[in-house]
């Protein structure tokens, strides 16, 4: 099915009015007109290395926010040829920034238990003893390998894949679900099952790390 043509100003305002009035089909029509366009807009205005899923999520988030709170867009306060389109672009940009910031914070948190602390280097006078720092780093890497070997014991093939994905910083439930062979289940069930496996693996990691 081809994407519908872009809306005129009157059509934009009519669609928004119908959202405000609670027209049951207006949300679907809004998504149908704007989702692909928002995705293309974000792709065109951001780094190519940003995962496609983040872009799609940000575009979806912007639309869902407007659908649930249509009064957040005020045609009277937004000027320009196509004010609704302009509003959605801004909202999608903001939502993408939020997703990227969350991802940054998550990556930092997931690395903190396995990375060698920079602080340890300072206490040992790193600027004076680089050999000791290298030794500490090697010992940390060896400990990490031993920890992971112990954690991996007895895991199923799917659980092993999930562990590797976690260590690589993977975020998307769909990827974990694929690894577990449950991609055909409804998203909510995928999420619940993926979370169970991740909790199990995190417990193992904590036990091995802290004794």
């Amino acid at each position, binding site marked *: 099915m081809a994407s519908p043509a872009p809306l005129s100003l009157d059509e934009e305002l009519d669609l928004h009015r119908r959202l405000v009035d609670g027209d049951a089909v207006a949300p679907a029509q809004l998504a149908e007109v704007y*989702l692909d366009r928002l995705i293309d807009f974000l792709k065109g205005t951001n780094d190519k290395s940003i995962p496609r899923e983040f872009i799609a999520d940000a575009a979806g988030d912007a639309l869902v926010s407007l659908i*649930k709170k249509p009064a957040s867009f005020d045609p009277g306060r937004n000027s320009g040829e196509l004010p609704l389109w302009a509003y959605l672009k801004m909202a999608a940009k903001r939502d993408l920034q939020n997703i990227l910031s969350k991802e940054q914070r998550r990556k930092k948190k997931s690395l903190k238990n396995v990375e060698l602390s920079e602080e340890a280097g300072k206490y040992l006078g790193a600027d004076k003893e680089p050999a000791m720092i290298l030794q500490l780093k090697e010992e940390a890497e060896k400990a990490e390998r031993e920890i992971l070997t112990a954690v991996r014991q007895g895991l199923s093939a799917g659980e092993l894949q999930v562990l590797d994905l976690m260590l690589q910083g993977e975020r998307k439930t769909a990827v974990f679900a694929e690894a577990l062979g449950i991609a055909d289940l409804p998203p909510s069930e995928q999420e619940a*099952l993926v979370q169970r496996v991740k909790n199990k693996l995190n417990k193992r990691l904590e036990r091995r790390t802290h004794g």
Partner: protein
Amino acid sequence: MAEPLENLARRLEDDPFFLGCALRLYTTSARLSEQELAERLGCPVQTLVLLRLCRAPKPEGRQFQKDIARIADTYQVHADVLTDAVRRGQAIWHLRQGTASGAGSLLAARDSDGDVNLEEDR
């Protein structure tokens, strides 16, 4: 059109604001495939994506009928089948939330999702 809209519709399947939530609960309960649901509604499978993204009909009597008529008319689906699907889906959702459904709702069919059992780590 398919992929981003379809992914969005699936993301929203747990959100009762959208029609997709009731439809998912209905199809799971009735053990229907996408194709079977589309056949019952009298529409192409591709139309299901847009149906899912509609706002769920409000439960209050007159508004419910109005919303059903609007959706059925726009997407050319059988209003009676849509009514049944939404009522059952919404009833299942309310039962799961532990609240009584409103007057006029159908009794929910027993919902049996397939379970994937994982052993807890000891």
